[in-house]
């Protein structure tokens, strides 16, 4: 029964934060982010958490020599293979799914538990799929932005997908079935360390919340389209006149 506590914890915390969201009036993107008030609370909560996590990530980044850090990154990336495989099959990407099995076998053995990415050198490219992307290719292509406590930017679709994927992801499996959080914590620190270079940029932004949302949403679209999203409609940026904008704003609230 232990396994459900973590999920219940995150959901309870989300509800708690939603409870204090009432005073927030700003809405910068009613279409994609109707829960902005709540999301900003979670963003602030995660930033508070980062006061503890960041120094650990900085220390880790200093202590770990680059090749080791790359190895840890490879190790966790290799553990994503089962989730990628299942979702490639669900999306009908059979050829790619064979490559994912090949990669997992090669990197787990020759690549010593995944620390070395031998498979890429052997011509088996890395793919990344998850249930959120599968649902998007099945037609659930617009989902509202959702900040999740501890995990950060997501959408309702991708957060739900992530939860479902976690039941057969090795790191999630260790938590759900064995109550082992070690891998999850190390992965969190390793991931945080990767984003240290971007901290200054985020902190100097006019609206850090919007910057994080923008970057995450655009990159997510890019993943869903496997690196080949349709070109942006730049003309829309020029034709942006104030009269056309008003009904959209009122309609979204």
């Amino acid at each position, binding site marked *: 029964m232990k396994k459900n506590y973590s999920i219940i914890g995150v959901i309870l915390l989300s509800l708690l934060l939603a409870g204090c969201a009432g005073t927030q009036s700003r809405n*910068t993107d009613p279409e994609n982010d109707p829960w902005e008030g709540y999301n900003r609370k979670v963003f602030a909560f995660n930033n508070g958490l980062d006061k503890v996590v960041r120094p650990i990530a900085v220390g880790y980044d200093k202590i770990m020599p*680059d090749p080791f850090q*790359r190895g840890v990154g490879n190790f966790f990336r290799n553990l994503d293979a089962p989730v990628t495989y299942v979702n490639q099959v669900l999306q009908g990407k059979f050829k790619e799914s064979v490559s994912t099995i090949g990669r997992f076998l090669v990197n787990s053995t020759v690549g010593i538990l995944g620390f070395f*990415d031998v498979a890429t050198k052997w011509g088996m490219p890395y793919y990344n799929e998850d249930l959120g992307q599968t649902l998007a290719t099945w037609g659930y292509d617009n989902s509202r932005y959702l900040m999740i406590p501890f995990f950060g930017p997501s959408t309702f679709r991708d957060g739900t997908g992530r939860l479902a994927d976690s039941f057969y992801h090795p790191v999630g499996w260790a938590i759900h079935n064995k109550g082992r959080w070690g891998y999850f914590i190390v992965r969190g620190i390793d991931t945080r360390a990767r984003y240290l270079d971007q901290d200054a940029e985020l902190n*100097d*932004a*006019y*609206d850090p919340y*919007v*910057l994080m949302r*923008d*970057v995450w949403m*655009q*990159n*997510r*679209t*890019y*993943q869903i389209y496997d*690196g080949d*999203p349709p*070109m*942006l409609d*730049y003309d829309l*940026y*020029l034709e*942006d*006149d*104030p009269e056309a*904008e008003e009904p959209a704003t009122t309609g979204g609230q």
Partner: protein
Amino acid sequence: MKVRILLLLAVASIFSGGLFAQTQAADPVSLVEDITGKIFTDVTENLEEYTANPETLDELVRRDLMPLLDIKYAARLILGRAGRGLGKEKIDEFADCMSNLLISRYSKGLLYFSSEIKLNVLPQRGDLNEKLTRVRTRVTLPEGGEAPVDYAFHKTPEGWKAFDVVFEGISYVTTYRNQIMPEVQANGIDSVIERLNSGQMQLAE
């Protein structure tokens, strides 16, 4: 002696004029290949000098990369509805500010990736009769792996020019727009230009 120098200058200007005409006709893919290839070679060969004097690298980028870009168009896209009612000079001032920011960032990126930089320009897709196109490139990272960097081009009277850079799906124009448009609306264009200029000075130190 003076005549020879003048003659040399004249020849040089004809030559560069010829190059310019060639650039005009060039398709976006060859533009990216030629210009970035030239810049990368220069940086690789003179890395020590550029590391010691980053300003000289800024100059190189300004001279070689800027003619490829349509910063004024990018500035208009970024300002969006916040650009309405602003005078042409203000928009130009903002565009200059964006150029400086971009040059300083690009130079920093060049030094960061230094000698290991490798660029692979993917072949053109679709036909060039459209007014918009995308050039897709892959930059090989020093730590292994590739970073996808795309350039959005549009047709101008002076030929194809890039106006957006898209890194792993993240468009500079979109991202800047969503920061700068509300900031201009809240604080005014002058305050934004001032802030961007001061930020750039900080970065240069």
